[in-house]
């Protein structure tokens, strides 16, 4: 039957996701600039794995393959996961993580639109719990010690685990700035001393702070093109700043400045690209605020007092669980039931 409305805005899931992918490009560009092209290899591996897994799962579930494979959501999951794990990790790590994210956390829950958890973050959680060692080998930015690997060497390490002779893994990789900070604080160093280490830059980690800035740039693009609403990123970053700022003011020797938290780890990509996954975040404005604030507090607690190097993934997953409840208790008042005109 043909029924109104007969017109629709020319928008599609595929277009929205494509724009989100595009918005990741500034961050990726900085990534390549500071850490070499290895990230492009893991992005490619993740993309191929995601598309193959998606097609396989669609076939198994008797769903049409073409409209779903072209909706770009599997690609987005793949990219977010690839950007969350060390680019120099062995090739199978990203393949396993992506395949799990798509097959289990997306399709086994009913596919597009039905997954309660952010698939990329599930992939990350599975990898960091199952393979903690390779998840800590982050590339040292090449301007730090000049001993960077060229593309051929990175490629060779990813696929064969072989490094050029004379180089050890420790020489070309390092822990993340957040991890380093935590370890050094445990060793009794003060924040000021730690931040004098060469791996740190002006705001946070050398190089990685610029990658975070790149993601923030892409995020602003999404914000201004109204692909995402302001609630999640603004409240998330605001709360993170407030909590980190409070601790920092009370004890600057042990608690790093809030901007460090903003530009470290997955805070920026989380604020603009991960928390904003529409499927797994609340639908109401109030709900978004609660969700983002909760995720920010959890991120900080896990980062500072928890055992994992970063807290964004687990904070996201923990808040994902609360989404149905948040939605129910934050229903807005409908037209005519709000009292007299504002």
């Amino acid at each position, binding site marked *: *039957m*043909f*029924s*109104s*409305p*007969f*017109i*629709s*805005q020319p*928008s*599609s*899931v595929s*277009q*929205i996701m494509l724009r989100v992918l595009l918005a990741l490009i500034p961050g990726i560009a900085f990534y390549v600039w500071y850490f070499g092209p290895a990230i492009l290899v893991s992005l490619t591996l993740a993309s191929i794995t995601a598309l193959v897994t998606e097609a396989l799962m669609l076939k198994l579930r008797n769903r049409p393959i073409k*409209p*779903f494979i072209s*909706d770009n*959501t599997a690609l987005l999951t793949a990219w977010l996961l690839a950007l969350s794990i060390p680019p120099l990790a062995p090739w199978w790590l990203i393949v396993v993580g992506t395949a799990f994210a798509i097959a289990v956390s997306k399709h086994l829950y009913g*596919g*597009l*639109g*039905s997954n309660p958890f952010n698939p990329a973050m599930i992939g990350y959680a599975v990898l960091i719990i199952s393979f903690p060692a390779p998840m800590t080998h982050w590339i040292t930015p090449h301007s730090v010690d000049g001993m960077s690997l060229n593309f051929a060497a990175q490629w060779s390490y990813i696929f064969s685990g072989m490094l050029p002779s004379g180089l050890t893994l420790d020489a070309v990789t390092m822990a993340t700035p957040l991890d380093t900070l935590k370890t050094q604080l445990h060793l009794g160093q003060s924040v000021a001393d730690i931040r004098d280490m060469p791996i740190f830059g002006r705001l946070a980690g050398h190089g990685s702070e610029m990658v975070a800035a790149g993601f923030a740039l892409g995020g602003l693009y999404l914000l201004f093109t109204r692909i995402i*609403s302001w609630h999640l990123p603004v409240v998330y970053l605001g709360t993170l700043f407030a909590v980190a700022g409070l601790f920092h003011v009370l004890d600057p020797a042990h608690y790093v400045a809030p901007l460090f938290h903003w530009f470290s780890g997955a805070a920026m990509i989380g604020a603009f690209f991960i928390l904003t996954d*529409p*499927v797994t*975040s609340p*639908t*109401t404005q109030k709900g978004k605020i609660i969700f983002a604030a909760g995720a920010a507090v959890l991120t900080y607690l896990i980062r500072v007092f928890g055992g994992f190097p970063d807290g964004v993934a687990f904070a996201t997953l923990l808040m994902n669980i609360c989404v149905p409840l948040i*939605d129910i208790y934050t*229903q*807005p*008042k*409908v*037209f*005519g*039931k*709000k009292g*007299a*005109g*504002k």
Partner: protein
Amino acid sequence: MRTLFSFHGGVHPPTHKAESTRTPIALAPIPSKLIIPLWQHVGNRSVPIVQVGERVLKGQKIGRPEGKLSSAVHASTSGTVSAIDMQLVAHHSGLPDLCVTLIPDGRDEWISHVGVDVTHTSHAELRHLLRKAGVVGLGGAVFPSDLKTDAHHHQIKTLVINGAECEPYITCDDLLMRERAQDILRGAELLRELLQAEEVLIGIEDNKPEAIAAMQLAVTQAGYRNMEVLCVPTVYPSGGAKQLIRILTGIEVAAGVRSTEMGVQCFNVATAYSAWRALAHGEPVLSRIITVTGNVREAQNFEVLIGTPLDELIALAGKQADTNRYIMGGPMMGIDLPSGTVSVTKATNCIIASSLKLFPPPAPVMPCIRCIRCADVCPADLQPQDLYWFAKSNNFGKAQEFNLADCIECGACAYVCPSNIPLVQYYRYAKSEIHERSVEKLAADKARERHEYRQFRIEREKTEKAERLAQKERDAAAAKASFEAGLAAAENAQQQTINEAIERAKVQAATAHALNTDALTQEQLAKIAEVDARRAKMRELAATAGADDEPPKS
């Protein structure tokens, strides 16, 4: 300057209004036949009062209103009634309905008609005339206007005249305001008088500067004091009655509440116009302005006789070969017409000839990704993504809980949905199911009540019967008891009598004996002694004789 309010959400679809506003309203010629539906309004279908073969005059009533909520239908021109039967009509149900088919004689001969002096006619009489003239809401809702002009004892502050015309393509109100502003205002003033409203606010979207200018000029010229033309921002659906009332007054009329209860009433500009024509000139609603646009050579507004077949109307604007169907109304809320043979009604504000190029079939539906673009644009502040979920899973209770009833089916949600989900269809489905269930529930409740009453009645009868029985038993027992008591009493009495009698007899006997033996003479005594002796002798004899006769005892 009055401050305007805004409503949540809304969309900005391409307006496509320029195509049909280049030329003034044209008078559509009398068609070869008129198919006039008898049910063009909200409420009861009107009853045909003409016969097949009868000649009717222009303006002659051919359908009389049936019941309170109904309206009259008239012959749009003079001619002969050729049929009164079921025909396809322009209604979203797609079902045929009773129509009067009229073959015009071309003379367009009016029945005698005169207006009334509106200032010296009672309100009740004016309302009656509106009903008689078949004046209904011409914005598309076709609710009988006579009922809407009755405020039901509510104090009306504001009469809103709706000239927003927010739907894309439609320009009939725009052209009407440009060309006939004076009569619209007269009608508005009349409606204000009927409602005893304090002020009249006329809302027009700011994409119609010519109409705004014309209306403002007319207000100034006529010198209406409590009347104001207000320019409202162009955002769909600002022309929805609730939305326009919100914009102009800040009042939000919730679902299930009459706006009059909140001191507001709203009429469309075309309704105000036709109310004036009906009362001041005695002209019933025989024609209306219709925008013919879309896939036609010359999009234009026509004044069209009610009952004109669609095909003949489209031909006037130049039908394009690749036209595949017609939409009545706008592209956001309009209905798909079953064929070009249906005729225009009082609800027809626009006909859009459609082609695959103009309105391509919708893209394949994808799952909802909860992006809430729908909630962002919903003018009723609903959560369309939740309502969709509930409607899809037949969870109607939850849909009602999430205020499905407040959905005005404006289509803004479906318009922006990136997954191309036909959201409004889901809401219509859920609403109709809920309606059906409530009707069923009502019937079931009635049946249950009846059944319960029957049970109660049976129970009551049983109790009464039992009581009666018990009473009877009690009565019987009492009777028995009293009988027995009586009996006993009687017996006692008898016994006493007997005893007394015995006593008396004894006494008597004693007395009698004494008397018998007292007065005996010597002679008598001797006789007695003689008799006694004889008797003794006889007894002795009998004893000896008896011994022989009787067998020995041992």
